[in-house]
């Protein structure tokens, strides 16, 4: 997309945000509203003017939101309040909301850090599937090396903002990655969280 995000402002920044889907560690759903409305919020960037309530969105978008919920396997929860869901379900709704903005690339910041192993697997499955179906690059930061090895097809190790590892996942063993962590343990003793494994599924960048 070739733009400097940090210096973009106003309309331009909004356009950049629309093109990048972002999945948060803490989901960021509005608890008191329904899942459908949370997903619809993802379409706000395409709409003009503020919206309140499911009815204020066009019918076509409501159908689209239903479809996105279906993709993450939660269409049955469409009219459930978001704060009644489990953590894993909330994250899937959040992914559906990101899909609703039709992003060109998706970034997920520790999307499974507060989830149990089974929900984590479901969330990563969904991220993998949408990247294949929508021909979209998905970049996921993870601390769990096994998860990265299991789902990603390219693994990048970062320390202090520098790339210390960049390999195809199929040529990589657990030990190689753990090595990165081990080295970090020696060099950093202030407990700073400065290493992450970025696991991306590469489809050709547009």
């Amino acid at each position: 997309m070739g733009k400097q995000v940090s210096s973009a402002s106003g309309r331009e920044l909004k356009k950049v945000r629309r093109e990048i889907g972002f999945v948060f560690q803490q989901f960021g759903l509005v608890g008191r509203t329904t899942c459908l409305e949370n997903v619809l919020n993802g379409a706000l960037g395409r709409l003009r003017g503020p919206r309140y309530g499911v009815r204020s969105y066009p019918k076509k978008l409501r159908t689209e939101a239903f479809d996105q919920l279906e993709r993450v396997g939660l269409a049955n929860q469409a009219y459930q309040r978001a704060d009644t869901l489990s953590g894993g379900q909330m994250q899937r709704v959040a992914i559906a909301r990101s899909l609703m903005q039709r992003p060109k690339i998706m970034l997920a910041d520790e999307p499974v850090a507060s989830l149990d192993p089974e929900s984590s697997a479901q969330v990563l499955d969904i991220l993998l599937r949408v990247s294949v179906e929508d021909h979209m690059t998905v970049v996921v930061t993870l601390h769990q090396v096994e998860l990265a090895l299991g789902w990603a097809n390219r693994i990048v190790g970062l320390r202090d903002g520098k790339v210390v590892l960049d390999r195809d996942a199929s040529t990589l063993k657990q030990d190689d990655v753990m090595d990165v962590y081990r080295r970090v343990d020696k060099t950093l003793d202030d407990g700073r969280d400065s290493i992450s494994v970025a696991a991306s599924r590469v489809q050709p960048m547009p």
Partner: protein
Amino acid sequence: MSGAHLEPLIKSRTALPRAPKNWHSWVLITIFVGLIAALVWSWLFIDMTLSTVFGGFSDIWNLIQYMFPPIFDNFPEALRTTIETIWMALIGTTMAVVLSVPLAFMAARNTSPHPVVMAISRGIISLARAIPALVLAAIFASSVGIGPLPGILALGLHSIGMIGKLFTEAIENTEATSRDAVLSTGAGKWQTVLATIVPQIMPSSIGTSLYRLDINLRESAVLGFVGAGGVGFLIWSELRGLDYQRAISAVSVIFVAITLIELISVRLRATIIGDHLSATPKQTSRLRARVARDQKKIYVAISSRQLTLPWTHERVLQATVGGTYLLLMIVALATIDMPLLSAYKLGDDLVLSIGRLFPPDFTTARSELIKGMLETTAIGFVATALGLLIAIPLGILTARNIIIRRLVVTLTRGMLLFIRGIPELIFAVIFVSAMGLGPVPGTLALAIATATFMAKLIGDALEEVQQAPRDGVSAVGASRLQEFISAVLPQALPNLVSQLLYMLDVNLRSSAVLGIVGGGGIGFLLISAIRGFETETVGAIVFLIFVIVYAIELLGSFVRRIVA
């Protein structure tokens, strides 16, 4: 605190250890001593002795006997003006909510467009809070004319103080992740506010508005004292004509209205905020059945891919309440006796009547101004202390988790609700009629109102204490009283102290208007200045009230910060 404080304690086992004091506790002690000194001075200033108080009560008892049996031949007029009172409260509260929403978004730290806008909005909200509605009503009645209109304007502007403040706090308390998440999808600022912040503040905002409607109904019942419409004018003229049997019948009509609406509003607020604390097993089973029905409706809606929300219980409730509100507003606006002024003319009048307060004139009535302000402050202090004294036992009696006998709790709560149904200014008028002009009847009236309000706050604060420490103290064999003193009181105290300071600030404002009915303080000078069109003296009085109320508010928030 560092370990340095603790070290000597460990070394010298023979000496009794003492808790080290930090500067916080010294500041609090200073404030406490200062408040006690102010109280003693106040007591002496208004010359309140036990004999005047008890003599006063026998005078009041005599007057109450004059009121019976009530004569109800003024019932149609009392009903008509009571309904007018309700419409005034409804329209006034609506006006305040409409004005408060933009102000609150401009005043909240997380949505304000600019720090300067934020400071100005906060200033407007504080100013609105500091000027009593009755004062505004008296000022507006002299500029836009007698009738409900000045009353509505007064309620609408004064209520911004509370509604705007609570809305602002609600906006600031919303969580930020969902806002960031929706912003990250490329939504605009106001789209994001509506999608993420508004749903979060909705229940508390409705609760706040309903609560204010309650307060405004009480308030609008006495606005007629200064010619601003409602039942107050009828009560006022009957009391002035010494027609006590008819006055009490008018009071009882508004009393029934206030009590009924408070009961409805409490129920509604509990439903909206979702208070299931007091749910009985029968209610719980009904709740379960309702949830099951809702689930079924949702299931049907989803399997048929319906694109609108199904009519769950919650939605039906919301639509019913919303529809009823709209209907009432339409009836209110259609039937209330208001001159059809253009908004332009009205705005002009308001700006003019506020503009006439400037520049404030402190010199013409200098000595009355000083005496009146001192007396108002003194009344506020004594009434708060006296009210607290009565409120402590009553408050304990209303706490369900402390008093085991349900009957005692129910009776005390019922009695408090009964007394709260009569606005304090009506108490003041009756007491003044019985005891003659002066600060003592005003103080007593204010003390009674304070007691009923504080008792409720104390009861609520006690009910919020955690159970675990109490169980711990009971487990080591403490008696009920010991358990109360060492496990309940320390938990409730910080909350109670800040409530007490809030009460003091409310009472200083209330005591500023007591003089309008002859109950002492600055109010007498205020109403005569308004009637005599000495608008610049009015400006000076309003300014002084604002300064005192604002000072107490600052003190209150300072103490809250330290105690918390």
